């Protein structure tokens, strides 16, 4: 870190104070409402599959598949990105946001071809999610295995 003069420190403080602050309360409300609503839509399908005779843990699978379909379809049609402008994390954190993170870059990089464009860019965000998700689950599985061996 270079040593800052008094003026530079003052300017740093000044520019920080002028930087627009995100409207935290509004963003939080929107994230809560939109994220909650997406989960309620998921609950509709989950309840439907449970009523059809699946156990709650079995029903989670087809529910995710349907929600991923909607997330991908609404991203393709451009609706999801409009929602994302207002919803922030409310549209990112649900599984529909995971589908959005796949379709969005895949469409964007179509002009770079179907291998290096679409197929490769699909995993710009989804790849890291799978890497960290699968690795942490496997480590936890190994710990579980070792604890039960003892």
């Amino acid at each position, binding site marked *: 870190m270079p040593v800052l003069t008094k003026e530079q420190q003052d300017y740093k403080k000044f520019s920080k104070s002028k930087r627009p602050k995100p409207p935290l309360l509004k963003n939080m409300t929107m994230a809560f409402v939109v*994220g909650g609503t997406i989960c309620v839509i*998921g609950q509709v399908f989950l309840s439907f599959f449970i009523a059809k005779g699946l156990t709650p843990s079995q029903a989670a699978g087809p529910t995710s598949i349907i929600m991923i379909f909607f997330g991908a379809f609404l991203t393709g049609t451009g609706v999801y990105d409009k929602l994302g402008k207002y919803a922030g994390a409310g549209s990112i954190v649900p599984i529909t946001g*995971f589908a959005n993170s796949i379709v969005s870059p*895949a469409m964007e990089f179509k002009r770079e071809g179907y291998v290096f464009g679409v197929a490769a860019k699909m995993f710009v965000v989804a790849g890291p*999610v799978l890497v960290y998700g699968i690795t942490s689950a496997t480590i936890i599985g190994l710990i579980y295995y070792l604890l039960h061996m003892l």
Partner: protein
Amino acid sequence: MDFVMAFIVGGFICLIGQILMDTTKLFPAHILVIFVTLGAILSGLGLYQHLVDVGKAGATIPITGFGHNLVTGVIQEVDQYGLLGVFTGALKSAAGGITAAIVFGFLMALLFNPKSK
């Protein structure tokens, strides 16, 4: 009642994500990675299942639920097949979701073009 709880629990998980995004310099990709890992850890500690019992889809639809799904799969497979289950469990349990994401994602990207902003 399930619907109310799904709304509250799911909304609350997203709210935590929003606070992280607004108060730190994390990108959405960071949030997804942190949440999937956190879901896996909480599941491994046996805590996430309680959240699923209370919030139903409100806990399984957020990406933390994906981490939970991977871990429950691993643990089931370890119980059944031992060490091999450590390697097969996570993807077996998430097979439907991952396949849907790849196939639907690819097809939608072929069908549609980005909207000009």
